[in-house]
């Protein structure tokens, strides 16, 4: 780190002649390797860096180079000192050296919700950084980009049903309408307790359609693009036929299934091409007994830069699995909450309407007054 600073200093002194114009594509390439904090600082370089085309290019470069690894933690433990729900960490290391990982410091941005005391749920992230959260107390749904610290609130949708309970299950960006489709499962509070699936449009602001909830979600996942249940082909093996319980996840943008095999190992399968039965491939095995014991809580997060896999176990630990050696190691991140929920995202320059933390300022002042 010291060396880097020294280098920076050196470059600053040497930098007398402005460089020839680099083509946009190379500037994007360079920016896609920058940590969040630099991206945030460079927001005011020029407006073009927020041009949708530029933002898109930057995002796709980050995805291709597998750089800009960031993880958002949701702290599950609410204490007086530790009230804020989300922390963002830049797992931006260029190596898989565990010492480097351990030094990764968690950044705590102002969360976009108005009240500091709240419970939020990470629904997911798509298009890189755009994470969506719901807030239980007010049932607000937001898009949030922790990189630019902007969020956008889903305005309240007219209630067509007098009383209901709902959970939000997923969302995606629809490039044809440039809108976000949000899926929620609604449960009526009347004696029928009827469940159905609802699609909300973020910008279009409508409750688009209702669908019945199918009995077997895995076999018939809901296609958000076409709004249809589709049959999902599963690999044709004994354990599929025998209905061995399994875990679903997403790894490297591909659908991933964790099969416990006779209680001795976990087989990780990936569907290389979505919807194609023959594209299911056994990617690797995990045989560590303690991983086996925690199978129910095992969740793939993402690949590290060198192709190791980050898993979350039991809301407590992040582990790094090396498929080449079949080893699992603990992954420590400085400042990460003790009980956590993890979601990975890619840093993006995407600006959303609302500025984060504006309400928190007021709260902070109030809090200081109380303390003093």
């Amino acid at each position, binding site marked *: 780190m010291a060396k880097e600073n020294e280098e920076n200093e050196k*470059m600053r002194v040497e930098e007398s002649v402005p460089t020839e114009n680099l083509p946009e594509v190379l500037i994007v390439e360079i920016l896609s390797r920058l940590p969040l904090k630099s991206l945030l600082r460079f927001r005011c370089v020029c407006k073009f860096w927020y041009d949708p085309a530029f933002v898109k290019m930057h995002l796709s470069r980050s995805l291709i180079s597998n750089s800009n690894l960031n993880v958002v933690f949701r702290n599950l433990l609410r204490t007086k000192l530790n009230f804020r729900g989300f922390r963002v960490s830049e797992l931006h290391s260029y190596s898989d050296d565990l010492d480097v990982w351990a030094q990764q410091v968690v950044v705590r941005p102002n969360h976009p919700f108005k009240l500091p005391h709240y419970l939020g749920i990470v629904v997911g992230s798509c298009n890189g950084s755009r994470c969506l959260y719901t807030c239980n107390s007010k049932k607000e749904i937001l898009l949030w980009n922790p990189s630019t610290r902007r969020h956008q609130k889903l305005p309240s949708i007219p209630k067509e049903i007098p009383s209901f309970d709902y959970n939000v299950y997923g969302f995606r960006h629809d490039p044809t309408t440039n809108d976000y489709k949000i899926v929620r499962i609604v449960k009526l509070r009347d004696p029928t307790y009827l469940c159905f699936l609802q699609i909300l449009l973020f910008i279009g602001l409508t409750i688009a359609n209702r669908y019945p909830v199918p009995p077997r979600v895995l076999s018939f996942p809901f296609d958000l693009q076409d709004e249809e249940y589709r049959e999902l082909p599963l690999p044709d093996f004994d354990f599929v036929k025998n209905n061995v319980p399994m875990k679903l996840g997403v790894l490297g943008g591909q659908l991933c299934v964790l099969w416990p095999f006779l209680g001795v190992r976990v087989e990780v399968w990936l569907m290389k091409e979505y919807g194609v039965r023959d594209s299911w491939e056994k990617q690797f095995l995990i045989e560590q007994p303690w991983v086996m014991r925690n199978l129910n809580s095992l969740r793939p997060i993402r690949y590290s830069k060198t192709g190791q896999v980050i898993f979350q176990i039991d809301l407590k630990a992040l582990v790094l699995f090396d498929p080449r050696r079949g080893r699992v190691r603990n992954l420590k991140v400085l400042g990460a909450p003790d009980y956590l929920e993890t979601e990975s995202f890619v840093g993006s320059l995407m600006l959303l309407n609302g500025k984060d933390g504006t309400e928190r300022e007021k709260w902070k002042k109030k809090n200081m007054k109380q303390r003093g």
Partner: protein
Amino acid sequence: MSSTKIFLKSSDDKTFEIDETAARASETLKNIIDGGCLDGVIPLPNVSSNILPKVIEYCKKHGGDNGSSKKIANGGVDKDKEILPDYDEEEDKREKVRVDELKKWEEEYMDFDQQVLYDLMLAANYLHIKGLLDLTVEKAASMIRGRTPDQIRENFNINSDFTPEEEEEMILIEDEWDDEWAFD
């Protein structure tokens, strides 16, 4: 293995020699070679004679493997490899030595000023040498990481098109971010 020699001509009309195997580290050159359009000398009007030797040096070192010391995670393990091969301690050590040696070479190789870095990046982009492009881009990124927006504008020859008020507002938000760190 003996290899056919290829001749490259820089923008300022100087000719350099490179082995065919080394030249294949560049997608662009590889396509020219495979396309059979090899007519003695390949002109490279976008690469000057002070950059071309650097490019050739890189290609020689990487002779067609087209990578850098970092393995790019391409969504998992090598398909052709057995799932979970027996872990070979010796091979792992050899691999580590190889990577360390390559890293050291890269470090020495990359010791030049910013103008050369950008020229080399442009050449790598033009010649489609992925490893070299990665290397130069990472270096450039590590150099600008700690800079101010003003320095960035100067660096990339960009004019600010924000009004002073807009800029002020953005800086305020950033200060708050820093404040956040201190507050914790």
